[in-house]
C-alpha cells in the first residue's frame, strides 16, 4: 500500500452520502473524494417521489439533488451504477462488484435502507411494488396508468407514511384506493391516537377505503400480474396495483460482513463513528447508540443530512455530535404534517388549535415534560416546538391549549 493520500470513499449517493462528500470539502479536505452510487441516476431528491413525481407533476431533471457537474466542480468523483461487494477494514479497501479495488484513508457508509418484502404467497407478482427509488416510483407510475386504463383499483398494504402518501396521490389521479392496515389505527407507531383518527377521517373524506386489523394472507395473480389481495378473514380486494409499505430494513450487510458492529442498522455514536476506526456511517442505514445504551433508528432527511455532516467531521478528526430534536414531515392532500421530537411513551396530550379547523398541533408530554409536537398545517408551531424541545423547555398542558398564551415567550426566560 502506498502512503500517498488515497482519499475518502463514500458508499451510497443519496442524501447522506452527498452530504458527507460536500461537508468534507467544506471542511477543508483537499484529497480525493469518491462517491459511489448503486443506482444509475445522479443524486436525486427522494421526498417528491411519493408525491409530485407519482402525480406526474415533475420530470426527472426537477428531481435533481446535485447535478454531476456541481459535484465535479467540487472535485468530487461521482460513480453511478456501482455496487460494492466487500469492505476490508484492515487493508482499508473496498472491492467493487466488477472486481476492482479502491483504497481509502477514510470510509463513509451511507447505504440506506430497503423496503421490507411482503412475506405472503404470490407477492412476487408483477404490479406488487414498494417505493424507495426513482425506478420504483417510475414503475408505480406505469402501473397507475394501467389501473387508470383498465378501471382497476389500487390496494395499499400498510398505513404508514409512504403508503398514505401514495394513497393520497393515487386518489388525486382519480383511482379507487383501499388501504389495508394490520393495526387498529393508521400510523400507530408514530402518532397519538387522536391524530391517527384524524388522518383516517381525512383519507375517508377523500374517498379512500381503510380496513383495519387486516392480515394479508396472499396475493392473487393472473398471467403473472396481480389481480387481488386476500386477507386472513377471507376477504378479497381486487387490485391492478399493490403498494407494499410495511417499513424498511437498514442496509447493513456489507458492514456486518466487514466486522463492523450492527444491530438492525450500522451502530454509530452521536458523532457518526462506527465500531471500526476510519469508518463512519450516516443516514437510514444507521442505528444510533444513545447514552442509556438503547438504539435509535431514524429514517429521515434530517437524520441523513445532520449525520452526514457529523460523519464528514469525524473523518476529519473532529467531533460534531448530532443530538438535535428529530423532525420529519409528510404531505398528504393539502395537509402538511410536521413532527418534532419522539412521541413514544407519552402519557398526556394537549391540542393547540382545533382539529376541526384543519390547522393545529398535538403536544405530547411524558411525566409533565414536553417530548414531541405534531403539527398539521401549522409550520409556526412546528418550528417553535423544535426550539422548545432543543432548549428542554416545557409549557404546561393549560398553557399549550390556550392559543392566547405566547409559548415563544417561555424561551426568553
Amino acid at each position, binding site marked *: 500500500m502506498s502512503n500517498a493520500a488515497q482519499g475518502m470513499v463514500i458508499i451510497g449517493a443519496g442524501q447522506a452520502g452527498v452530504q458527507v462528500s460536500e461537508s468534507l470539502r467544506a471542511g477543508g479536505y483537499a484529497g480525493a473524494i469518491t462517491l459511489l452510487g448503486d443506482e444509475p441516476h445522479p443524486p436525486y*431528491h427522494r421526498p417528491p417521489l411519493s408525491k*409530485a413525481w407519482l402525480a406526474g407533476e415533475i420530470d426527472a431533471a426537477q428531481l435533481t439533488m446535485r*447535478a454531476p457537474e*456541481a459535484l465535479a466542480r467540487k472535485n468530487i468523483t461521482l460513480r453511478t451504477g456501482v455496487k460494492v461487494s466487500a469492505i476490508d477494514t484492515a487493508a482499508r479497501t473496498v472491492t467493487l462488484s466488477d472486481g476492482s479495488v479502491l483504497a481509502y484513508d477514510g470510509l463513509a457508509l451511507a447505504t440506506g435502507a430497503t423496503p421490507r418484502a411482503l412475506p405472503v404467497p404470490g407477492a412476487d407478482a408483477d404490479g406488487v411494488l414498494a417505493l424507495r427509488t426513482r425506478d420504483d416510483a417510475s414503475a408505480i407510475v406505469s402501473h397507475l396508468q394501467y389501473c387508470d386504463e383498465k378501471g382497476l383499483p389500487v390496494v395499499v398494504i400498510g398505513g404508514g407514511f409512504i403508503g398514505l402518501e401514495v394513497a393520497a396521490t393515487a386518489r388525486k389521479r382519480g383511482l379507487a384506493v383501499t388501504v389495508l392496515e394490520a393495526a387498529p389505527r393508521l400510523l400507530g407507531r408514530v402518532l397519538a391516537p387522536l391524530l391517527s383518527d384524524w388522518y383516517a377521517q381525512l383519507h375517508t373524506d377523500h374517498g379512500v377505503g381503510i380496513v383495519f386489523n387486516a392480515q394479508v394472507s396472499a396475493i392473487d395473480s393472473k398471467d403473472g400480474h396481480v389481480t387481488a389481495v386476500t386477507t386472513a378473514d377471507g376477504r378479497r380486494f381486487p387490485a391492478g396495483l399493490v403498494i407494499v409499505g410495511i417499513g424498511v430494513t437498514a442496509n447493513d450487510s456489507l458492514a456486518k460482513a466487514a466486522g463492523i458492529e450492527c444491530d438492525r442498522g450500522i451502530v454509530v455514536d452521536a458523532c457518526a463513528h462506527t465500531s471500526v476506526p476510519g469508518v463512519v456511517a450516516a443516514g437510514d442505514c444507521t442505528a444510533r447508540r444513545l447514552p442509556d445504551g438503547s438504539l435509535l433508528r431514524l429514517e429521515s*432527511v*434530517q437524520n441523513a443530512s445532520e449525520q452526514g455532516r457529523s460523519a464528514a467531521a469525524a473523518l476529519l478528526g473532529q467531533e460534531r455530535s448530532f443530538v438535535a430534536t428529530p423532525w420529519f414531515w409528510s404531505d398528504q392532500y393539502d395537509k*402538511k404534517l*410536521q413532527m418534532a421530537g419522539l412521541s413514544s411513551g407519552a402519557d398526556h396530550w394537549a391540542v393547540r388549535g382545533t382539529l376541526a379547523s384543519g390547522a393545529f398541533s398535538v403536544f405530547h408530554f411524558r411525566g409533565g415534560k414536553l417530548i414531541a409536537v405534531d403539527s398539521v398545517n401549522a*409550520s409556526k408551531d412546528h*418550528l417553535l416546538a423544535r426550539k422548545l424541545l432543543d432548549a428542554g423547555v416545557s409549557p404546561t398542558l393549560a398553557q399549550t391549549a390556550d392559543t392566547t398564551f405566547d409559548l415563544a415567550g417561555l424561551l426568553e426566560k
Partner: protein
Amino acid sequence: MPNITYIEPSGQSVTLSLPVGWNLMQGATANGVDGILGECGGSCACATCHCYVDASRLGELPPPSEGELAMLANVSSERRPNSRLACQIKVSDALDGLVVTLPPTQE
C-alpha cells in the same frame, strides 16, 4: 423560456433559461448552481433553499404562503425583507430577468 440569474455565494453569477412551472430551487439544483441545498426536495419543510430576491421586483412575485413565512424564520443566514424560499417561487414569463442572490450558508 424565461431567464433567471442566480448570484452564488462566491459572487459568481449564473443565468439560466428555465421552463415555466419549475421552481427556482429545481432550476438551481438541476443546473449545478452553488449555494442551494433544498434538502426536503421542495416541500417547504427545511428552509435550505433560502434566497434574496431582487428587491425592486419583489412585488411581482406571488406573496409567500403562511407556511413559507413560518419556515423563513428558520433560515441559517440573515433573514431580510426580500428573503424567500426558492422552492416556493415558480418560473413564469413575467419573472424573465429576475435576479436572486444566494446567501452565504444554508446550514
